């Protein structure tokens, strides 16, 4: 599904990614771990299409297409979803209007008619239940005045609405209490289908108790320094990142 080869990238002339290679197959869940500043969020930003990250070398292929040549909106329409570490507040734009526009742009891309108002509201209702999001939030402006937990739930709600093939969840667990974490993780698990894949970026094992990865990678100083099964996350929880740094 996703194939990253020798990816090197810089922000403002500073090299952040120093040659990343990663294969995500259909149906797999990958966890991307690593200390602060190792390049996890930069990788997520490249995959979602942020323009401030400059790709210097390497390729990213998604379902046979050159991902790096696609606009951010086309990546989304092709099934890539980024769950933001810091979701953006957009005053004056209602959640309903936001999601209606997004869903219909996806439909247009697939050659489908826009959803009728009633079908759309029905869809919203279903998906809201899935992530246990408060109905009132849907009538408010996008993320405006939402608590940290509400913002993260709102990310998963958007994921539910857009039904991505590849979801990249960037520290979706940060700032969540244990109940919110459970709700968010359950939401992700219920959305997971055999034909979809997930990349979970996290610092902590606790999210991986709920969303169980097939593969765990450790990113350090712009490189993947370790790849193993889910037991790697437990080892990191126990020992921290220092032993990996030392092995370097």
């Amino acid at each position, binding site marked *: 599904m996703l194939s990253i080869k020798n990816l090197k990238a810089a922000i403002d002339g500073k090299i952040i990614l120093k040659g990343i290679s990663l294969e995500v197959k259909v149906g797999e869940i990958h966890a991307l771990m690593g200390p602060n500043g190792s390049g996890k969020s930069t990788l997520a930003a490249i995959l*979602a299409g942020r323009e401030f990250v400059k790709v210097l070398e390497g390729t990213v292929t998604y379902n046979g297409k050159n991902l790096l040549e696609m606009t951010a909106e086309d990546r989304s329409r092709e099934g890539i979803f980024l769950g*933001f570490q810091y979701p953006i507040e957009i005053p*004056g734009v209602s959640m309903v209007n936001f999601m209606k526009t997004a869903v219909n742009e996806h439909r247009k891309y697939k050659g489908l008619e826009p959803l009728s108002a009633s079908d759309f509201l029905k869809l919203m209702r279903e998906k809201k239940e899935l992530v246990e999001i408060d109905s009132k939030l849907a009538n408010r402006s996008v993320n405006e005045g939402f608590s940290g937990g509400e913002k993260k739930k709102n990310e998963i709600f958007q994921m539910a609405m857009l039904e991505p093939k590849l979801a990249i969840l960037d520290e979706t667990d940060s700032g969540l209490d244990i109940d919110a974490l459970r709700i968010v993780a359950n939401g992700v698990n219920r959305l997971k289908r055999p034909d979809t894949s997930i990349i979970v970026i996290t610092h902590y094992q606790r999210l991986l108790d709920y969303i169980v990865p097939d593969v765990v990678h450790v990113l350090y100083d712009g490189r993947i320094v370790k790849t193993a099964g889910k037991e790697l996350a437990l080892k990191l929880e126990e020992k921290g990142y220092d032993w990996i740094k030392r092995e370097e």
Partner: protein
Amino acid sequence: MSNNAGSSERYIKLYRENIEKVSRLSSPYINSFREPAISEFKKLGLPTKVNETYRYTNLDTFFNHDYRSYFMPEESDFVKAEAFRCDVTDLDAHGIVLLNGFYPTIRDKLRELPGGIWIGSLNEAAKKFGDKIEKHYGKYVNGNSDGLVHLNTAMASDGVFVYVPEGAVLKKPVQIVNLVDSGEDIFNQHRNLMIVEKNAEMTIIICDHTLSPQKFLTNAVTEIYVGENANFNIVRVQNEHNNAAKITHTFIHQEQNSTASSNNITLHGGLVRNSTHHFLGGEGAETRSYGLFLADKRQHVDNFVNVDHAFPHCTSNQLFKGVLDDMATGAFIGRIHVHQDAQGTMAYQQNNNILLTDDVKMDTKPQLEIYADDVKCSHGATVGQLDDNALFYLQSRGISKREARLMLMFGFAHEVIQNINVEALRERLDNLVMQRLRGELSRCASCMVKCM
């Protein structure tokens, strides 16, 4: 300077030549203001950039021009206005049409609404409500240093009169449609007086439109009295063409514990200048002053707000926003004046602007004069581009860049629109703003027909 003095002369001459005709239609009381006002105008002249409140607005191109000014409505105007009134009868509002500043209706020049409320022509009202007019007319513009206010007092021919007696509550808004329509370039001035007595409530919607493409200049003054514990809202929707100049002066005088709101929505217009004066003239009064403008091409929109906190424990809130495209220019001056006795004042001001090109220009200036100690005041202004992070957030959900930009601008504008207390109008304005942002909105005679 010499140019401008020349322009002032032009209007003084206009006054001399036509004052007899103008006075014939008005009451002696209203006429008694004319001579002193023209002397005052002679002294002050037309505002120039030397005047602090007109620093960012150049009136020359519109005032140095030969307009036809007429002081009696014509037969054909009556027909036109009647036809338009028929169009708007579907609205859930009490409609009034002013054509070129006149109230050209043969019947119903003054109408009674439920609750003893009256709306109609100011000249007509002078016959029936002479005492009310003597109590309020010319009182709230008193002492103003803007030459144009005095020019209006000197020459305005007619306008709208609204009277809401003590305790009366008007559920439906009153909608005043100001039309400018002529085969020639015209200059027109009208004068509105609105009296909302103690414990009364009403909402006014004013819609400014041009129907023909000629060059127009309008200079309008509205005086509003809001009695003790009364509640008054005014929404102005401006949608004129690029060859029209609209200058409005609105004076809202509030008594104790009253609430008032003003909302100036400028969708289109060549040169627009709104000055809104809020006088908090009693304890516990609260006022809100909002505005939104969308300008492109070479349009210029200037909002001047003046809030006078003359009594203790009053609250005021200003929120003005602008979106500027192409080569448009804009200005905002927000003045808060807290008098020495006005302890416990809360006064807030916010001005935010989005610049869409490098060729636009926005001037924004807060002016706070605070003479009391126990005061909470804040002001802030921003001038910037659309937020890249927000733009990316929308795009990352599959929304095209173009659509994402529109959504952000719409959201920005909606923060002003959402304060309008008439739901149907709010929705209508949201639609109009969206159309305007998409570049689909031109003139909107049709807009009014479907307004509510």
